[in-house]
């Protein structure tokens, strides 16, 4: 199976000396990697390194066979969705938030989804009661998180990086988002998911345990 993202002896240091040491793992295209470990172990840092929000002190990360540094950062990032732990929406309506990425130069060639398509996405993530003209800031945290997931998916990324996407959500929202992750993976999407919860998808290609600066593949 083709490798989509590949960490080759990657090290990273936080100010103060601690960090990740010679991390080595890969995620195949269409795979689902669950990342777990104690707080502060560096789970989120793995995702941030993949999205080049952090730069490794040593080692190479490859995406689709090429080193991350070989891509222009906007070109690389638009091929990866990154879902933050705390959802961030900008001022304006749900529609304006969903169409935000299409205003960026790198995405201008992409077809802009119409209202029917956007509403279809809202329905798919059980946001049927949310209207496109609603003020995004007024949504609940769970609704905002789902809105952020849709916003990323509209760019048709090849890899979805999810940093504890359900940690701030209630039980209902959590099960919707977890179900969505499994569906997306079943449809061929590659996922790297940092999770504290007991989310155990039926098919997880790898389980990565981060501890004491090391990453160990446990399943």
């Amino acid at each position, binding site marked *: 199976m083709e490798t989509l993202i590949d960490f080759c002896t990657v090290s990273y240091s936080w100010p103060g000396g601690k960090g990740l040491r010679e991390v080595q793992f890969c995620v195949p295209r269409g795979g689902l990697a669950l990342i777990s470990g104690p707080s502060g172990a560096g789970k989120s840092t793995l995702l941030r390194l993949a999205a080049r929000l952090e*730069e490794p002190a040593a080692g190479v990360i490859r995406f689709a066979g090429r080193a991350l*540094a070989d891509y222009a950062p906007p070109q690389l*990032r638009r091929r990866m969705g990154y879902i933050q732990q705390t959802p961030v929406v900008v001022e304006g309506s749900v529609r304006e938030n969903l169409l*935000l990425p299409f205003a*960026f130069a790198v995405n201008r060639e992409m077809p802009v989804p119409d209202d029917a398509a956007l509403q279809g996405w809202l329905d798919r993530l059980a946001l049927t009661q949310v209207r496109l003209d609603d003020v995004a800031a007024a949504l609940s945290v769970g609704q905002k998180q789902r809105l952020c997931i849709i916003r990323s998916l509209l760019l048709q990324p090849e890899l979805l990086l999810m940093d504890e996407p359900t940690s701030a959500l209630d039980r209902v929202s959590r099960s919707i988002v977890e179900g969505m992750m499994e569906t997306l993976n079943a449809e061929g999407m590659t996922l790297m998911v940092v999770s504290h919860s007991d989310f155990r998808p039926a098919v997880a290609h790898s389980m990565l345990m981060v501890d004491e600066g090391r990453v160990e593949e446990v399943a």
Partner: protein
Amino acid sequence: MSAGYIQISLWQLGLALGLVGVAGISSVLFELRLQKDLALGTLRTFAQLFAMGYLLKIIFNLNNALLVMGVYLCMTYFSIRIIRGRVREKNVDYFAPTMVSVMVSYTLVTFIVTGIIIGAKPWWTPQYFIPIGGMVAGNSMNALAIGLERFFAELRGKAGQVEMMLCLGADYREASREMFRNALKAGMIPSINSMMGVGIVSIPGMMTGQILAGADPADAVRYQIVVMLMIVAATALSSLIVLYLVRRRCFGSAMNLLLRS
């Protein structure tokens, strides 16, 4: 020496000391313990302004371009130092961008005002270039400090939003556009506000000086208008240049945000 205004003799200046005495008496009566600061402040006012007065007299008499530029460089250098003292950011080196911004904007605006609008010949004529340059520096350094401080604070406070946009394919300019605009606006607003109140709330210092020196108030007004407009221009230009240059330094080579909340 005859002049178009009433000159203040030394004994009259001594009389003015009585004014500061009022503040001193208040300090003693209400136990404010400001006597020492008042005394030092008064002494420094006398010493610094007399020194400046004599220095300007020498510079005006010598009428030497290099000397004028030297004084001008000193003024800009001290304005950069004051800006550095006011902005607390430690992770981004903004010294070089501030220097470029200050040198380009102050010099350009001062040259346009003295050489083109006022039409002094030569353009560096010290009695025009130095006070005009001083006013440009003094006023736009506040704008620079406010703009920089606001920009860094906004980037830190909205780091999540910036990274969200970066991850959706924004480049660093697109991701920080809102913070850039807010900082630019914050830097420019005080000079725009001062245009609103001028002539209603206060008679500005330069105009007051010219009127006291015997100038026709109608002429003094024209100078003051030029000064107000040049301050707005210097403020806008210097803020724009410094923020444009500093913004790139807030992001790494991967367009990753280097500031954290």
